[in-house]
């Protein structure tokens, strides 16, 4: 998809400021007098900047995501040692080379996926880095006193001020670009900003102190400067491991859910379909991408508590006896229990939302939650779950058509289901996002 006019305007601003700042920095740099030491330091830090760009952590799985890179450490060292001009020139060159390498890599691997708009989006990182580095460097230069780095309260404040400016400008620029590129409404910018920050705010803030330490040690004990790799790597690995683990936990639990369905040919694909229906509904309810994703994940795991429920109860047509209903409830109880225990993974594995999908809107369910007391995601899942149960075949009956199922949904709205969720479902049907999932299911069932 090509850039929208708004995006073009934004790129013009970013590239314009970045380009002119880089030009100014270069002319001033060329007029400076250089000692061999400062030339060496500049060359070494430039190489480190370029190399450190390659150790990045992707912070989400979306096509347009922010990354956490380590180039700020050497760039800050340059700001503190030689002033903003060196840092700006180095940051621009290093980032440009890095983006070129990345585009070439992508081109070699999947030439069909490389789109010029995407390349432009990636190259906008170059002026954005320049802008941020220049702003932080200028603020530092304006605030600092005559003493050495980190000596005296004024210089400590200068480092803090540069950090603050860099932090907000970097995230603000990034959020605007992401919002525009994902073609989201502008009012979502703040949300994108927050989402960007969620996992990394402290990590990126800490790159500045490490840059300052690098500057100090390069001047005093150059060999100790190498040891700074230890905290940098520790921080980087901890962040990377944390992010990877989140993704892995989700895929593990989803694998469990998938294999659980193999137990019974009649439930094959049920969770995936419920997830699809629920996500389609969430989109129609104007939810953010993140929430839609969470609804989808809740759908994928909503039946996971059924692991130890005997098939005889799961497949029983008609009403369950009291004991059987008791056993059936252990499945929601387990999900509720897991939901209570998960804190760090509560967003990735929404067991709490999954647990309450059997609650009735009028409060006649197991936990007797009424209306809005039931989490919204659970109310959405309830509609999706009911729809899929009706339209799928069972050993004792054929699945009903979409129209009939819709009619029943409307009938039970207000008693069993939330009317607004049923409305959202109807909107999704009108939009045509329900039909593909349903016909895929019907095709499979004809094959069986």
């Amino acid at each position, binding site marked *: 998809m090509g850039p929208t006019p708004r995006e073009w305007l934004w790129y013009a601003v970013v590239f314009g400021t970045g380009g002119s700042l880089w030009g100014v920095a270069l002319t001033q740099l060329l007029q400076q007098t250089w000692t061999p030491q400062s030339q060496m330091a500049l060359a070494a830090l430039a190489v480190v900047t370029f190399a450190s760009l390659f150790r990045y952590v992707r912070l989400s799985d979306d096509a347009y995501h922010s990354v956490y890179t380590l180039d700020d450490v050497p760039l800050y060292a340059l700001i503190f040692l030689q002033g903003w001009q060196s840092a700006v020139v180095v940051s621009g060159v290093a980032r440009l080379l890095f983006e070129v390498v990345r585009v070439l890599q992508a081109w070699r691997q999947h030439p069909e996926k490389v789109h010029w708009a995407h390349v432009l989006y990636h190259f906008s990182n170059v002026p954005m880095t320049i802008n941020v580095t220049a702003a932080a460097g200028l603020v530092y230069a304006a605030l600092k006193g005559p003493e050495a780095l980190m000596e005296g309260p004024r210089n400590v404040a200068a480092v803090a001020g540069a950090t603050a400016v860099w932090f907000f400008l970097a995230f603000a620029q990034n959020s605007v670009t992401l919002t525009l590129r994902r073609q989201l409404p502008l009012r979502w910018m703040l949300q994108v900003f927050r989402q960007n920050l969620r996992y990394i705010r402290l990590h990126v803030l800490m790159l500045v102190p490490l840059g300052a330490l690098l500057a100090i040690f390069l001047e005093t004990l150059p060999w*100790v400067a190498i040891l700074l790799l230890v*905290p940098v790597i520790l*921080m980087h690995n901890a962040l990377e491991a944390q992010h990877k683990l989140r993704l892995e936990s989700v895929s593990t639990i989803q694998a469990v859910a998938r294999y659980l369905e193999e137990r019974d040919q009649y439930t094959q694909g049920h969770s995936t379909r419920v997830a699809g229906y629920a996500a389609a509904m969430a989109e129609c309810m104007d939810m953010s991408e993140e929430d839609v994703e969470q609804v989808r994940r809740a759908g994928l795991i909503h039946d996971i508590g059924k692991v130890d429920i005997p098939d005889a109860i799961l497949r029983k047509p008609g009403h369950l006896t009291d004991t059987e209903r008791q056993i059936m409830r252990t499945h929601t109880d387990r999900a509720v229990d897991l939901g209570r225990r998960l804190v760090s993974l509560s967003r990735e594995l929404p067991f709490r939302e999954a647990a309450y999908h059997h609650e009735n809107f009028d409060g006649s369910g197991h936990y007797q939650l009424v209306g809005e007391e039931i989490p919204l995601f659970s109310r959405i899942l309830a509609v999706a779950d009911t729809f899929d149960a009706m339209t799928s075949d069972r050993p004792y009956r054929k699945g009903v058509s979409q129209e009939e199922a819709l009619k029943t949904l409307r009938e039970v709205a207000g008693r069993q289901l939330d009317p607004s969720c049923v409305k959202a479902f109807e909107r999704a049907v009108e939009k045509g996002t329900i039909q593909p999932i349903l016909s895929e299911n019907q095709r499979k069932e004809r094959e069986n």
Partner: protein
Amino acid sequence: MNFTAILSQFRLAVTVGASAFALATLLTSQAPPFDMGLLLCLALAVLSERWLLVLPRYGPFTLSESMIFAVMLRYGPVATLFATLLAGLSRFNREAREGAVIRPEFMFYSLSQSWLSYGCAAWLWAKFRGLAPIMSAHPLLDLSLMVLLAVSVFGVQAYVVALHQWLDQQCLGDWSTRINWPRLRLILQALLPLGVLLTACLQERPGAVLLLLGPLWVTYSSIRNYTATLQEAQQVVGSLAEAVERREPHTVGHASRVGQLATDMGRYLRMAETDVRTLASAARLHELGKISLGDQILHKSGNLGASEWERVRRYPEVGAEVASHLSLSRREAVLIRHHQESFDGTGYPHQLAAEDIPLGARILSVAKAFDAMISRRSYRSAFSWQKALEELRARSGSQFDPKVVAALEAVLGPAVLRNRAA
């Protein structure tokens, strides 16, 4: 052999040796130059002991190692003695608050043990290098001295800790398998360099210590977050594995009993301690793959049809696939995948034979068979231990690895005797 007596003699010897060394240090060494930096290091050593980190494979550790190392490099043996003691007391204080029972003789032993290693290092450093500013006049010499010192002193410490653990575990198998190499590596690669950085900051620009503490705090909190996430993921998977167990009433507790047995057998067969831990957690999850089996297969007592067999033979694979999604459980996944293989190559899913089957999987298969035999089934009563062992012996060489069956007998040995006496 009376292991408890040997263990307490070992502890006593270490404690007495350390006390003598401490006394000698206090009498002969100079008092440290007392300044704000020392105070800061001591405070950090005490504080960091409160913030325990537990990394999978590395075990528990804290940043106090870095702080004590910094004290050692800059302030000499007497200050190191105080730093070690303060950090140790802070650690026991934390453990007591967490509800652990602190045995005094263990506390003295543990303090002595860590003082011995740091004390030796501090003494050697002060004697041969002196306490002049580090890394400035001869940076490369300083660096190599530090590496040499750290490797030797912490290497010896790792051996002492391993010996203690081996005695504590009734001398099962080989003591050198208890050496915690990952922890040693972590100390040498990360904790000590951080100590050197702290020393360098104090020496060159004390204000810069602030710059170091921020990144350390962030690292600490993201490791904490990582561990919490990992625990939660493991809880979810574990709770599902438990639920699978509950589907067949007679298998309740099976996984944990198998884990216990397999741990002992692995130690007896001289597996490295990290592999023993892998074995234990594989045991916990080894039946997870049964989630994909329907009740009609799971509860069938008669013969299974061909297509049903097909599905049963797939369950180890399913369990392994689920486990392998977590990169930390990749090695568990291998054991889960092969725990139904037979020593002569007639098992499933891959018909591996003999040494091609990972040792851990062979252990799991014996432990699992033993536990199945000594528990009651719907169609038969439980076997006695003797009868179960006889049965295993009869199938050793065909279904089971003879070496592993022998290990089971050795591990059960004293317990079997006790059982018979009772």
